């Protein structure tokens, strides 16, 4: 089978964080860990090309995946294998997205990462196989990925025994009895001593270690970001008032304050009456500018990033967070104020 292998800028040998903004490209043959993967796969499968993208670029340009998959198709690839991404979040997200994009395009898709990689949720049901936590585990991780590649190539589904990780899709259906009757039955089960019975498995939330405090606010570049449904008046991007599927960015250049009539909140979770009377109370541009003038903060970033946090799924919120982090890192921001509503 003709395979395209995906790696980030680091494993392609282009560079580290300094090169994380590298755009997508395809290079002939196997590269970096792909060489070892090709050797493990033997003659049966061929890595015809390596797809590469910088982690920040991939996180902030989701279309990189479709672009690389279409390049892979042009080279006659039937399968896209990505990673291993270990616990690296942006790399994991990129691997999951390109594997998902391959599936969507009718190719086979497979990614490898550690079960705690926050990018795992982006795989949208496409196969992901477990890797080690850090690149020191490359050898074992590639053994697992090669075995999984062979199995997926035959058209078979990976199972937990093959090291398949990631959430299994949950789908809606009608139960025999109403939720009220099932709740009463669950009370009886529970009182009978069964402490495990449930219809909803407990979700496994990752925790984020806060970054170290900035040493000198007067030297730092600050960005304002918000989940308060803060948009230019008229909502040109049609940002949703609930269940947001996207985020928006708009320039703050030349603005001293978020004036009523210039900005508004489309958040559906609270009464926007006071927010719209003074949009600075959602995005504190007036105070931030004052502090900038006083020299209390170094400089305010020229744009804000925003979405609506109302009925948002954890998966979408996590994706927005990773994309924002990549954007802000690329813009050399040292401090971020996230106003929540």
């Amino acid at each position, binding site marked *: 089978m003709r395979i395209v292998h995906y790696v980030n800028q680091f494993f392609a040998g282009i560079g580290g964080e300094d090169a994380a903004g590298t755009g997508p490209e395809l290079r002939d043959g196997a590269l970096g860990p792909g060489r070892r993967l090709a050797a493990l796969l033997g003659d049966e499968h061929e890595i015809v090309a390596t797809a590469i993208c910088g982690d920040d670029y991939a996180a902030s340009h989701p279309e990189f995946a479709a672009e690389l998959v279409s390049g892979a198709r042009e080279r006659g690839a039937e399968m896209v294998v990505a990673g291993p991404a270990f616990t690296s979040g942006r790399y994991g997200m990129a691997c999951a997205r390109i594997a998902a994009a391959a599936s969507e395009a009718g190719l086979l898709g497979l990614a490898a990462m550690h079960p705690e990689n926050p990018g795992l949720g982006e795989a949208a049901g496409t196969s992901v196989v477990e890797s080690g936590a850090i690149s020191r585990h490359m050898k074992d991780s590639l053994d697992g990925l090669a075995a999984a590649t062979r199995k997926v190539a035959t058209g078979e589904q990976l199972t937990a025994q093959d090291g398949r990780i990631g959430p299994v899709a949950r789908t809606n259906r009608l139960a025999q009895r109403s939720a009220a009757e099932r*709740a009463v039955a669950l*009370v009886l089960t529970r009182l009978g001593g069964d402490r495990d019975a449930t219809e909803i498995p407990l979700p496994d939330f990752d925790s984020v270690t806060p970054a170290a405090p900035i040493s000198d606010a007067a030297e730092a570049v600050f960005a304002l970001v918000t989940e308060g449904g803060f948009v230019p008046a008229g909502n040109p991007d049609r940002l949703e008032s609930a269940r947001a599927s996207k985020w928006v960015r708009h320039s703050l250049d030349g603005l001293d304050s978020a004036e009523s009539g210039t900005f508004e909140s489309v958040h559906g*979770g609270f009464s926007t009456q006071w927010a719209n009377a003074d949009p600075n109370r959602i995005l504190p541009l007036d105070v931030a500018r004052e502090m900038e003038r006083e020299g209390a903060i170094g400089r305010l970033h020229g744009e804000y990033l925003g979405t609506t946090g109302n009925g948002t799924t954890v998966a979408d919120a996590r994706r927005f967070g990773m994309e924002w982090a990549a954007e802000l890192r690329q813009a050399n921001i040292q401090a971020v104020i996230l106003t929540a509503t």
Partner: protein
Amino acid sequence: MVHEVRELELGERTSYSAGRLAVGEQSVRDLLRDPALAEVRLACAAPGDRVRIVGVLDAVQPCAKAPGGGGVFPGLLGPALPVGRGETHVLRGAAVLAAGYLPRAQEAIIDMSGPAAPLSPLGATCNLVVEFTPAEDAAWEDVDAALRRGLVTVAANLAEAALDAEPDAVEELPEPGSTANGKPRVAVVTNLQTQGKFKDVFVYGRSLSGGLPTVITPGELDDGAVVSGQYGHPALKNPTILHQTHPVVAALGANDELELAALVLCPEPVDQANKELVSAHAARLCAGLGLDAAIVTKEGGGNADADVTLKMDRLEEEGISAVGILGEMAGRDGTGPPLVVAPTKATAMVSTGNYDERMTLPACERALGRDRVALLDQPSTDELELPVAVIYCAQSTLGWGRLTCAETA
């Protein structure tokens, strides 16, 4: 006193006979008259009709007391004094509902036929639909209040038509109290959304916002002590009709092995500190009532998960087995985490399905409420692809529905 309604029609005068409810169009219009409303229009939508109702606000089950028997909808129709005793006449199978635009009201849809019909309790009732045009310059709060007063006034008026009719069934509501029958004592803990204008629920006509949990009886619910003014999160909302017919209260009442010991209403505060206070207080209240188990329900998405899961944890700490009923928000493909805030001690949860899963609603003949579905910018009668989240009460955690979610085999 249950009077079944199987047919609904508009007519000259209001009458009820043998399952047939005729609605006197002019008299009902008069009952809805209010300075905040320029015009109201009435329509019927019955199960099986190729009708879609868009922008559904509240829905109320008609109920009334015989003369001298006290009032219904206390705090709105009558004085805010305790109700819940004596006989109440209800028109089961009928609902009075309002549909149209209000600020903050997320677009709620009922299909009277097709795949979405069985997901909504209002897909199975004969609905008197009130459409409205606000008066010029009327404040939206006044429009909302006029609709709320109007719906309960009409609901009471329609049920009064059945006061002299022989009931189809006589049902006794469970009467919580201290019994020494040895059965496990179970509470129903029902969270009411309290997020201000257009997102509030009224108990005796007052918001529970800022307050602490309180105990009421199933009889009070039946008499309309809880009236909804909450128009967010269509699938997860609990309209007045579901409070009147609280499915968990009914299921516990029908169970021989368990004793319905208390019904606790709690606000859903908007900040974490108050969510924790209300949760701890509700658990203390349940402990004080000597309970063995509690079923916790919620209203709304996202942050309202915390109001359920915090209570479940506090109840477990008090030695009370807690079961939560929750909707899932697992993303379009169902692979995301199902809850926003998970319990840390309790584990027993019932799922009312994944909010984000898409479904296709076939085109229909007639739309009521709103001409266009703003969410998709499509005519309301079109074939629509929408998340379950917009189907009115499809995931109500008061437990009416059969929708659930499980791992794909």
